[in-house]
């Protein structure tokens, strides 16, 4: 539903106080689960996400095996209580699409040919959802894969940019600003959302979806913002992994 929401003021400050190119607060912890081969807990603004990696292990059923490489199954799932109106448990069409695009993005950076006939299962559980859960989930999955010791070309990372402004009562949209990392209100009332994932070493684009309305110029600016956001988050991913490693070194 759209209304005449003013999402950014004349000085370029957004309704939650952020600057156009400012991320929400992000906290990443690696290795938070006992049972999984690798795991990550991630808070991104109000989002709370856990990712767990199992594998490489034999792909079951057998006819799903690829004799040349491992298959990557990402499963994005939202807890029933993670959203305003309780969500029925189990996958819906949205989560199945997100699982697909995340699987495809992760597969590109995993050295899958090391493990023919194997499966690498990446479970992403959204405990609290506040705009941007697919980026949060993919980013957590990247850390969990590294934590599991899966050989990676790079640690994948995701971030979105978008366009916000004011939507008048008649539905027209005015004063669009390209901004980084849409918050909940911006996602609901904004005019475009561009989530991407990259391999940060090469800037290769692993995931890209866009909804809304962007001119070519706006798109290029949004893409720049999102790539910059990815690099900022990438640092936090590495710190989290390093921290776990150091702690482990010290503790054990």
């Amino acid at each position: 539903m759209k209304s005449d929401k003013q999402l950014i003021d004349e000085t370029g400050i957004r309704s939650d106080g952020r600057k156009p190119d400012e991320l929400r607060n992000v906290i990443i912890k690696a290795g938070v689960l006992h049972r999984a081969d690798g795991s990550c807990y991630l808070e991104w603004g109000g989002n709370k996400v856990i990712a767990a990696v199992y594998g490489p292990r034999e792909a079951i059923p057998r006819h799903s095996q690829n004799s040349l490489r491992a298959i990557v199954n990402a499963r994005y799932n939202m807890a029933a209580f993670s959203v305003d109106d309780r969500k029925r448990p189990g996958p819906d069409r949205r989560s199945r699409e997100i699982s697909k695009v995340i699987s495809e993005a992760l597969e590109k950076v995993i050295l899958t040919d090391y493990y023919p006939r194997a499966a690498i299962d990446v479970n992403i559980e959204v405990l609290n959802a506040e705009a941007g859960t697919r980026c949060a989930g993919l980013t957590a999955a990247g850390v969990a894969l590294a934590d599991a010791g899966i050989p990676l070309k790079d640690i994948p990372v995701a971030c979105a940019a978008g366009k916000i402004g004011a939507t008048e009562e008649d539905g027209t949209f005015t004063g669009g600003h390209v901004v980084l990392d849409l918050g909940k209100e911006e996602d609901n009332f904004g005019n475009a959302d561009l989530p991407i994932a990259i391999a940060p070493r090469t800037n290769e684009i692993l995931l890209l979806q866009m909804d809304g309305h962007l001119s070519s110029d706006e798109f290029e600016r949004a893409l720049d913002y999102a790539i910059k956001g990815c690099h900022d988050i990438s640092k936090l991913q590495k710190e989290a992994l390093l921290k776990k490693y150091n702690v482990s070194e010290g503790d054990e």
Partner: protein
Amino acid sequence: MTISPVIKKDYLNQLASDGKRADGRKMNEYRPIVIETDIIGKAEGSARVTIGNTQVVAGIKMAIGTPYPDTPNQGVMSTAAELIPLASPDFEAGPPRENAIEISRVVDRGIRESDVIKFDELCIIPGEKIWLCFIDIHIIDYDGNLFDASSLAALAALLTTKVPIEQHRESLEPLIEKFPDIQTYLDTHQNDYPLPVREPPISCTFAKFNNTIVVDPALDEEEIADVRLTVATDEKGDIRAMQKGLNGSFSVEEIKNIIKEAVINGKELRIKLKESIGR
């Protein structure tokens, strides 16, 4: 992988290195496109689209339903795509799988996010009765590029859809007593009338293999492609939707170039679409 796909892959890659495609097309050239509309008598709108050998039928059914509580004055649409086993030896019967879900969701977003359907004109009694618009897409013959064929078929069907008020008038008239508002609606809509729509965005799909990017990938090309990108642009050349697919990657430059090509191809497809619906 058996031998034959490997040979096919080498052959297509070799051709691509020479700037050629197996069916003689240029890199930025679509296969022949045919769009027919009004082919399903039972549907309120329908279209059959062929792009080369790929064939898709879309049908629109309109029904009267209840609005969502948070949008009491708006009609509702729903999109489903079926990869029926008719179309390919690889499609299986059963509930839709990831590929069918992705197609239906991308087509749906292309229509929904650009407000192609004027949902506020699909309200009959605020909070009580609105028009439901069901878009069903059947893949009939699969030779690649289902995103563009499905999107074109859905649009051609929508743009020729009639709101079937004549058939539903009888069921609405008894409600006049309870909801006097409805009288106005019935008075101003004596006959079936075209679904109120806006200018739609047009989808163009690209695939990359052997570092070559081609538009409208045929099945042979899709099978060896590393990565795919669908870009929907409007009549001003603005971007209205994008979806990357497959487990490869693009560089930023590649994406920018694809957008330029999508604008150019989109213009041609838009002309074909308009011709088919007689506008």
